[in-house]
């Protein structure tokens, strides 16, 4: 959720410290991983909140928009070739990480909580203090933007 490696290190430290302090509140029947994840994302969110606010960037809606009689002006690129790749060190993975890094905080946090953390809409709403519709709008815009970037990446490969 945070951007730099140094920040991430701080967040991890904060997470384990805080987990250690809160160990009493951990219920043995709840999955430990989930509990730790929650603490980590709280630590990241705290950091995002306290960080000096960057200028608010609005995100363009990157979905096909319909004119009179035409909606998909360009053919849709099939992203399947990327799915079979290992994204760990390879270029498309790097490209995707750069795209997510470049997102404004308020969009990136929604994307990470939803598509990486697999949190339920309700939880994201509560965690970020947003309405369902705000979460959905942000997530939709962010996903469409990432999709478009990947499309651009593949189109550039050909």
């Amino acid at each position: 959720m945070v951007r730099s490696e140094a920040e991430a290190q701080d967040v991890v430290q904060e997470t384990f410290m805080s987990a250690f302090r809160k160990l009493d509140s951990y219920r043995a029947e709840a999955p430990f991983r989930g509990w730790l994840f929650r603490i980590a994302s709280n630590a990241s969110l705290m950091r995002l909140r306290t960080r000096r606010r960057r200028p608010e960037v609005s995100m363009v809606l990157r979905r096909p928009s319909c004119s009179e009689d035409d909606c998909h002006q360009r053919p849709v690129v099939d992203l399947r070739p990327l799915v079979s790749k290992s994204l760990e060190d390879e270029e498309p993975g790097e490209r995707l990480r750069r795209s997510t890094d470049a997102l404004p905080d308020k969009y990136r946090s929604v994307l990470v909580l939803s598509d990486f953390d697999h949190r339920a809409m309700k939880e994201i709403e509560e965690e970020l203090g947003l309405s369902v519709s705000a979460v959905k709008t942000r997530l939709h815009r962010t996903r469409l933007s990432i999709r478009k970037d990947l499309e651009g990446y593949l189109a550039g490969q050909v």
Partner: protein
Amino acid sequence: MLRCDAAVDMLLDAHDGTLSSQGRQALKGHLSQCPSCTAFQRSYEHSITLTAQALAVKLPTQVSARIYTGMTQRFRRECAQSPRTDGGSRSC
């Protein structure tokens, strides 16, 4: 018939499984007649999978070593600052 932009805006709820049955019907009807939106939906789903994969990068060993060192130092510091309440020896 549903327009393509409206169909694309239903993909989030369709992915979540929160689309109303009426919405599902409308989207299904549109997709059966619009190959572009069908391809778009596929790429939308793929991009969600790819995001999760790309963000789940392993922590480089150097990074985890630095975190470990940083944490041990913080534990020591916090421990030295915390008052002893029971009069016994510190557990940390």
